[in-house]
């Protein structure tokens, strides 16, 4: 079972993730939360604006979920992935990845696989805001055509 979305900061909710995961009665679950940290590139970060190609992001999340099931040979996989869009202040939640499976070892692998693949191939961008009204779009991974 899988749920994914790109949502406004006001809508991103650990409670929602927990309800989704709990409704599937798996033996092991794991919650990963990404938040905006206070420093990057030796600058004081005050917040991040996330931009997203929503349709490609959701497609990418679904592909990652399906690949994880095959590569990790997951049993009874359940995943909830939501990414924030728009301005997220310091300490705010940018991403929630909640996973559940039959056994504990698989949930660590499952969660790690999802976040690492998102970093490599999901079209989301960050504009960091710093103290003093300075802001900068961050460089990242170049997307390639799938072979």
């Amino acid at each position, binding site marked *: 079972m899988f749920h994914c979305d790109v949502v406004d900061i006001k809508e991103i909710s650990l409670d929602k993730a927990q309800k989704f995961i709990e409704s599937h009665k798996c033996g092991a679950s794991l919650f990963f939360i*990404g938040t905006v940290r206070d420093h990057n590139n030796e600058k004081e970060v005050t917040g991040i604006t*996330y*931009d*997203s*190609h929503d*349709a*490609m*992001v959701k*497609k990418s999340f679904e592909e990652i979920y399906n690949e994880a099931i095959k590569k990790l040979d997951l049993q009874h996989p359940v995943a909830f992935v939501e*990414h924030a869009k728009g301005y997220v202040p310091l300490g705010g939640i*940018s*991403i929630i990845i909640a996973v559940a499976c039959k056994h504990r070892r698989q949930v660590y692998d499952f969660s790690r696989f999802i*976040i690492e693949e*998102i*970093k490599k*191939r*999901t*079209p*989301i*961008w*960050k*504009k960091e805001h710093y103290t003093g009204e300075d802001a900068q*779009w*961050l*460089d*990242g*991974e*170049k*997307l*390639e*055509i*799938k072979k």
Partner: protein
Amino acid sequence: MKIKVELFGVCRELSDQDHLNLELSDNSEIKDLREQMVQIVKKKFPENNNYLEMVKKSAFSVKDEIVEDAYQLQNNDSISIIPPIGGG
């Protein structure tokens, strides 16, 4: 021919709107569109090598799929420019 380019990430700095309407010659390919985008950045941000590099490294997508540089553009195509990504 007319091409609509939907802007994302750093490329949003190129317009107050979320897209650019460009005019390209017939039989243009994605590589020609990339070159036009490079020229737009050079004109709008002549001192900003960071923006220039990000546009040079950008991918382009059609109907939510990344396409090759040799992709043949059609009149009234809607293309997304996908700069280097980094969410999470």
